[in-house]
């Protein structure tokens, strides 16, 4: 198990973001201040449209913000070049979307190994190991359309872990699953956190699932 420390390694400071909606500026994130320590296991709660996915996208460098800053291990992320931002997403971060976004033409194993191929590494053995770890060793060669919703999300989780990220961001990963499958995914996240020491921030609107996390943060109308 990796050593856990209380060092702050992800921090959002006075983060603001607005969207243009039908010619009108809508404020989605209003002066967000958030601090995550290494080894945190946190649920980010909020109603639909509260800005939780937008916040997650900003923290994961999938989206930009208007003002404020996000720091990773003390380094301001807005100062990174586009290439460095891509490298950050590739090496430090794992992101799981609500709609898994697996590539339909690739098998489960190939989907999992995909981010590693960007690094030029052949990580098929690691991909197989991860799929075994998420309980899908018998589905290595299956295509996404041959998998159930829960299995697709587990493949997406394995893909997010292929480059051993220190931070895992999950966006409503149980949003399309029934209660039993949602609990399986939650248990898997808990296992990732306890075994690999990965810091996890999960967006959810499910209060019952959020109760299982170590800490809960609530976002309402763009404010924490």
């Amino acid at each position, binding site marked *: 198990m990796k050593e856990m420390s209380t060092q702050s390694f992800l921090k959002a400071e006075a983060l603001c973001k607005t969207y243009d909606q039908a010619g009108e500026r809508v404020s989605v994130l209003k002066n967000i201040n958030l601090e995550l320590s290494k080894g945190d296991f946190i649920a980010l709660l909020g109603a639909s449209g509260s800005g939780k996915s937008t916040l997650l996208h900003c923290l994961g460098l*999938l989206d930009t913000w208007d003002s404020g800053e996000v720091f990773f291990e003390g380094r301001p992320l807005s100062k990174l070049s586009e*290439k460095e931002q891509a490298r950050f997403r590739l090496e430090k971060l794992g992101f799981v979307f609500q*709609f898994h976004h697996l590539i339909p*033409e690739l098998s489960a194993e190939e989907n999992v190994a*995909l*981010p590693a191929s*960007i690094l030029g590494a052949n990580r098929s053995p690691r991909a197989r190991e991860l799929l075994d770890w998420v309980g899908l060793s018998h589905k290595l060669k299956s295509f996404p359309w041959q998998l159930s919703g829960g299995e697709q999300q587990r493949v997406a989780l394995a893909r997010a872990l292929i*480059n051993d990220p220190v931070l895992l961001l999950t966006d409503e990963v149980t949003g399309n699953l029934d209660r039993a499958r949602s609990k399986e995914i939650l248990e898997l996240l808990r296992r990732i956190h306890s075994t690999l020491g990965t810091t996890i921030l999960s967006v959810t609107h499910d209060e019952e699932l959020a109760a299982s996390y170590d800490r809960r943060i609530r976002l309402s109308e763009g404010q924490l």
Partner: protein
Amino acid sequence: MILGLLCLVAGLNVAAALVVLFLERDREIAVLRAVGLSRSQLLGWILIQGTLMGVVSAAVGIALSHVFGVILQHLPIAELPGQVYNLTHIPLKFVFREQLAVSVFGVMAAWLLSLLIGISLVKGSFLDTLRHRK
């Protein structure tokens, strides 16, 4: 004139194939960008794929033109009524320089179109693509 038409047809075929190859794979490209593919890596990949496609298309096109040319000249399936046209076969002549010119034009068109498609793809928001393609 004929060479120009051939180049136009080659260019249009390459354009259609590249549009299908890249623009219909926008979700896959967005996923790759989200997991850490940089803009320059994406552009490089598109240029290599597009140019390679141009080279393969040119080679296959030239090879097929020879095969069909031989068939038309030597097999009776393409015989013409001599009393109408004063010809019994379609007159075909393979000019290496012209074939090379069409091939080079096709590969250059593929490279240029790949560059244009690549620039449009790297400029676009991959997050928007992922939001809209569930």
